[in-house]
C-alpha cells in the first residue's frame, strides 16, 4: 500500500512500481483534468505541482512522490487564473490549458506581477498547438483583475 496526497486529500493506493503520477491521477483517482499529450515530458500538458513546484506528471513515477503534496488543476479550480484565462480567451481546444494554468499558478505564486519577458521565459515549457500564447500572456498579466 502506498499513500499519495493530492489536493489536500490522502489516498491509499495499491499500484505497481513503474506507474506514472499522471497515470495514477487519471486512471486510479479519476482526476482527468491533468492531460497527457506526449507522454514523455516534452509538452507540459501534464503539469502538476509537487509541493508547489511544477512537475511533469507523465514522467514522474508515482512512488517517487513520497510525502509531498500534489496539486492538480482540480485543486486550483477557484484560482483566479482560471477566470483570467477564460476572460482573455487564453484557450481554444483547451487540452493544454489545465497544464498552462498549473504552470502559471507556480509563476504567480513566486512572482505576483511578472513581466511579459518573465512570462515568456517561465511558460515556454507548455506547448499550445492552437497558438493561444498572446492571450495566455495577457491572462497572466491580468490575473488579479
Amino acid at each position, binding site marked *: 500500500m502506498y499513500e499519495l496526497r493530492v489536493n489536500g486529500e490522502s489516498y491509499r493506493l495499491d499500484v505497481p512500481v513503474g506507474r506514472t503520477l499522471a497515470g495514477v491521477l487519471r486512471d486510479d483517482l479519476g482526476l482527468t483534468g491533468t492531460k497527457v499529450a*506526449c507522454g514523455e515530458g516534452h*509538452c507540459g500538458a501534464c503539469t502538476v505541482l509537487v509541493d508547489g513546484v511544477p512537475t511533469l506528471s507523465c514522467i514522474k513515477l508515482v512512488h517517487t512522490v513520497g510525502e509531498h503534496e500534489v496539486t492538480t488543476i482540480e485543486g*486550483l479550480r477557484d484560482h483566479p487564473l482560471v477566470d483570467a484565462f477564460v476572460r482573455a480567451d487564453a484557450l481554444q481546444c483547451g487540452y493544454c490549458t489545465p497544464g498552462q*494554468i498549473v504552470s502559471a499558478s507556480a509563476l504567480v505564486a513566486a512572482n505576483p506581477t511578472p513581466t511579459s519577458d518573465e512570462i515568456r521565459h517561465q511558460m515556454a515549457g507548455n506547448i499550445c*498547438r492552437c*497558438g493561444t*500564447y*498572446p*492571450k495566455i500572456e495577457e491572462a497572466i498579466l491580468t490575473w488579479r483583475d
Partner: protein
Amino acid sequence: MARLIRTEKEVEGRYEEQWVVVDEDVLDQWPTGPREVVGRPAPRVDGRLRASGQARYTADVRLPGMLHAAVLRSPHARARVTRLDLEPARRATGVRGVLGPDDLNGLTREPSYRGAGIAAVAADSLAEARAALDVIEIEWEVLEPLLDADEAVARGSLLAEPTNYERGDLDQGLAQADVVVEAEYRTQTVLHNSMEPHQSVCQWEGDTLTIYTSTQWIWGVRADVAAALGLPEDKVRVVCEFMGGGFGSKNGPGDFTYIAAELARLTGRPVRCALTRREENLDAGNRNATIQRLVAGARSDGTLTALGGEFVASLGWDGWLASTAGPMQMLYACDNVRTVEYGAKLNTPPMKAFRAPGFVEGTFGLECLLDGLAAKLDLDPLELRRRNHADADLVDGRPFSSKNLAECYRRAEKHWARRHEVRARSEGSWKRGVGLASQTWYGGGGPPSYAWVRVGGDGRASVVTAMQDIGTGTRTAMAQIAAEELGLPLERVTVALGDSARGPYASVSAGSSTTPSMGPAVRSAAADAAEQILELAAERFHVERRVLSLRDGHIVSSDGGSWPIEEITGLLEEGQIQGRGNRGPNPAGMRVLTFGVQVAEVAVDVETGEVRVERVAAIHDVGRVINPLGASSQVEGGIIQAIGHTLSEERLLDPATGDVLNQTLDAYRMPTIADVPEIVSELVDIPDEHLTNLGSKGLGEPPIIPTAAAIANAIRDATGADVRSLPLSREEMLRALREAEQRRREPVGATTA
C-alpha cells in the same frame, strides 16, 4: 418551403456537386455592425469547463470494463512480413483480444510506409497491451522504398491523374512580358500534432456501436464506419463533446477506430485505441511537402501577363491532391495561366488535410515570386498587387459574392508604411525589413445543416445540434447567434452538441465552414422559436404581432409595452417552444471566397542566419464577425502555426530507409510562447450580403495562408536574399545570403527571382 436543389458543396477546396433539400432562407440579414450579442466579444461559454479540467474529452472517457489497445507498426517504409506468429501475444498477461492482418482491412502484411499497422492487441491495461506487442514473433523482407517525389513522377507513381489547368496562352503571355521571373520553391512536410492524440473508445450495446472519438466530423465518422461495417447508419452513434484539436487531421474515422470497434466486438468489452505521440507523428497525417517550379511575366507597368507553375506534391502512400496551384489560378487578374499538378505516391506516411491544404504551400511560392517580380520592375509590392486585383473570379467567370481585398490593402497601408522606420532600426549584423503577402481561400460553407432551438418556461433557450466544437469556439458563436435572435442575454442560452443520436445533422468542422454552415441554421431555428413566442404574446396581450419584438429577455411592443419573456413561456409550464432551422442554399452563380493580407516584420542576423519574426499585422475579410474575441484568437493561432512551419517545423525522413527521425516533441520543433511576435489582427467585418441570413464566412484557415510568404518577403526586404525553401533554417538563410552576394558581384545573367 423545402425544395430540392443541385448545389456545389466545397470542403478544403474540393468541390462536389450534390442534390440537397433546402428550406428557403426567409430571414433578412442583420444590419452591419455589432448587435446586442453578435459582433461583441464573448468569452467562451465552455471556457471554464475546459480551463478547469472538467470538460470530458475522448481521452477522459472511462467506461466500466474498458480495455486498452496497442498497435504493432511497421518499422520499415516498405517491407513484406515473411513470418508472423501472434500466439505469444494471445497468451500474454492481461490480453483479451488480438487482431492480425487477416482480421482487419487496416492491418497489413505488406506495409508501404513507416508506421503502417500490422497487428493490434487489447488488454486490461495499456502497459500489458504494449508488452504483448513485444512478444509477437515477426520476420521481414525489407524492400527498397520510393522516397523521392521527382523520381515518383518520372516513374509514374502517382495517386491521381495530373491536374491540368489553363486559361489564355502562357507562352503568349510570356512573350508579351517586359520582365520575367522564374524560381523553384520547396515546402516541407509538417505534422499536425493536435494536443489530444487521435483516439476512439468503441462499445457495442446489442447491435449498436457507440464511438467516443476525437473528431472534426461526427457525421462523417458515422457514415464511414456504418458503410465499412455494413451497419445501418442509425446503429452507429458517434459522440464528441470536447475535442483537443484536429487542424484537418481528424475529418474521418481513422484505422484506430476500426481497430477499437473490432476488438470491442471480439472481446465484448469497450475498447480504447489511442495513438501515442510517436504514432501521432507517423500515422495521423501530415501537410505534404511540395516542389513548385514557377514563372511569372509582367509588363513594365506591373500588369501580369503570365503565371505558370509545375507543382509536385509528396502525398505519401495515400491521400488526395490539395490544390497547390489554386492561389496562382485565383489570386490575381492574369489572362494567361497554366498549371500542372502531380501527386506523388511514395513510401511515406499518408498526408491529410492540414489547415488550408495546398494554399499555404502555393501562396508561399506565388507571393515570393511576386515580390521577385516587383523588385525587377522596381515597383512597390503592395502597388503591384493592387494593379492586378481580380474583380471577378477568373477560373469560372463568376462574380464574387463579396470581396473586400482592396479594403484589406487600404487598412494594411499603415503597417506597410512602417518599413522605412523598421529598416532604419537595422544594427550591426542584424538587418530588419518588412514584407507582405495576399491570400485567398474558400470558407463559404454550405447546406445541409440543421439545428433545433428549445425555449423553456423559464425563458432559457437551448440550441441542439449534433455538431462538434474542435476548439474554434463554435459553441460560443452558436450561443451568440441564438441569443441575438431570441433577444436573450448570452448566459440564458446553452448549446448541446457532440452526439449523433441526440441532435440533427451538422456539417464538418473543416474548410473554414463551421460558422457559415451552422450559424445560419441556428439563426433560422432561433427565429422559428422567436416567431412562436411573439405569436403567443400577440394573442395573450391583444396586440398585433407586427409591433412585437424580443429584446434583452423581454417581449417589447413598439408602443412602449414590455413584458419579461417568461410571462409567455411560463404559460407552457413543462412545455417547450420548439424551433427548427436549416442552412439555406449558397448564392447561385456566385463564387464565395475569403481574402486577406498580412504584413510581417523580421530581423535577420546575416552572420548566423538566425531569423526572428518581430511583428505580424493581419487584415482579413471573412464577412460578418460573430465573436471578435474568438476571431482574434483564430487569427493569432493561424499566424503562430504558420511561424512554426516557416521557421522551425519539419518532419525529417531518413533518405535511405524512409524512417521518420523526429517523432517526439523535443525533436519536432513547434513554437512556444517565447517564439511569438507582436500580432495585430483586424477583420474588415462587412457582411457578405449574398451569403445566407448571416453574411459570415469562415476564419479558421485564412490567417495561416500568407504568413510564410510575408516573412520571406520581409527577409528579402531586410537582406536582399531570396529564401525559397521551407523551413527557413539557418542553412537556407545563409545559402540565400551567399546567392544574393554572388548576384551583387555578377549582376548580369541572374535568372532566379
